[in-house]
């Protein structure tokens, strides 16, 4: 599962040196490359489930990767509903998956959050 980085790219060459920074995801420390997207850092660290959605608590993660689908919603430093694929990694960010409270609060009438 933990596939890691493209160390040697067939066209772009070796992985450039970028400072590593540590942030937390659901309280656990994760290392990312400074300035990359939170979704990329999580994927490289082997973390694919970003949140659990809807009444059935179905797992969701990165899907479109370019900010359209909103499946990778996270809370960053307390600000909810940001896209992990658009927000960039910085040191000491506190990232949490979700929330999906809106769905629970209304008794699950929203279609699968």
């Amino acid at each position, binding site marked *: 599962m933990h*596939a890691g980085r493209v160390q040697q790219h*067939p*066209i772009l060459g070796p992985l450039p040196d970028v400072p590593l920074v540590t942030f937390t995801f659901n309280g656990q420390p994760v290392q990312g490359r400074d300035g*990359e*997207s939170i979704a990329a850092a999580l994927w*490289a660290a082997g973390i694919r*489930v970003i949140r659990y959605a809807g009444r059935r608590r179905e797992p969701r993660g990165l899907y479109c990767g*370019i900010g*359209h689908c909103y499946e990778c919603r996270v809370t960053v430093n307390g600000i909810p509903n940001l896209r992990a694929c658009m927000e960039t990694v910085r040191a000491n960010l506190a990232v949490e998956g979700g929330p999906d409270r809106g769905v629970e609060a209304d008794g699950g009438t929203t279609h699968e959050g």
Partner: protein
Amino acid sequence: MDRTGAWKLMGVRLMKVDVAIIGAGPAGLSAAATIAGRGLSTAVIDEGAEPGGRLLGQVHELPAADGTTHLWNGPRVAAELGADATKAGARFCLRSVVWGLFPGWRIVLHGQGPQEIEARYLVLATGAMMRSLAVPGWTLPGVVTVGAAQMLVNHHRVLPGRRAIVIGIDLLSLAVAQQMSAAGVKVEGVVMPPPGPLAGEASEPKRVVDELLRLATWAPSSGVRLAGRLLHGHRASDLVASVFPRGGIKVWDIPVMPRRAALEIRGNDTVHSVVLADLTTAAEPDMRTAHELEVDVVCTSSSLAPLTELPEIAGCTLSHIADLGGYVPLHGPALETTVETVFVAGSVTGVEDAPTAILQGRLAGDAVAHAAGRISDAEHHAHVEQVQTELADARRHALPLYPRVREGRALLAELWRQAPSRGMDRVSSKEV
């Protein structure tokens, strides 16, 4: 971000400019350089952290007109276009999401730059997005679009997985399969989506084999690389759907299987496997051949749809042109729309490649400069003619994602000539 000058805008609430360009992809960036180069104050807005849009993930080999191949280094092209725009004086508002657009024009933003931009002219270069491919299990983490996989490999330098399957056979999915494979992912195959009303024509083996042959035999020479692999050891006449090998044929050493479909993606919290089955000649799955293949990533590919929300909000007439990807803002030869101060460029006008978008950005930029009185009618008409010639030339050599893009463009030009009035009505090509 410093190199784009975006930091200068921190803390500014309202910004007034002559021209606002929404979208910092290839079209928006080249429009910015053209417009700012004519002395108009220009703001480029994008929700990404850096300029480039989809260019940032595009790293591949392109067939050249002379029969060889050349590298397309999207990130480098993005950096060059961004530097040109900055040098010309364009200002960037990055990490900024447009959430409101009001006549005037007033653009309301959420992000780190200004909260509001006032502009006399708009260039909408919003690009396109990939439609979802509904396969049972498609919401499982580990299932991504080929666009996401491309960004992971080429931009973020993250391996999408160890063993991948790609669902959907088209030019983009083949290119991304090849890029993943070259980066070290074992691509087990490129297969068909499950047959059914949701997949439509993309699930018919005959249509997909025809499409592969189109790619393989693209005239005059652009398809050499694919053709050499695809047709190796086969005669083109053998590659008809009914006798196409069930195990597929190898393109760049990746099995491409128009007669095998993915029926389901399985996994608990993340992708664990995919269920595959052969398709009968009637394009139905032969359940006797159903089997499970372990993979840790699934990439789906479907058609691309122009992102027309902003042209629609601006009041532009939209036309449905299937050969261009769906609804597009009705536009003229200089990329003017039915709303006098709104111009469009790039894939929002119809899905094509980045070199086309760059030329369109120049064209729209020139049209804005003309509308703002910065260039004469004569100069403008000469420019339009020149860039249109370059566009026609680029389209002759490009391997288009949509095979009938030229027919789509011709239909759109005809609709523009017939456009009765300016308004908000959608004009459907089916009604013409």
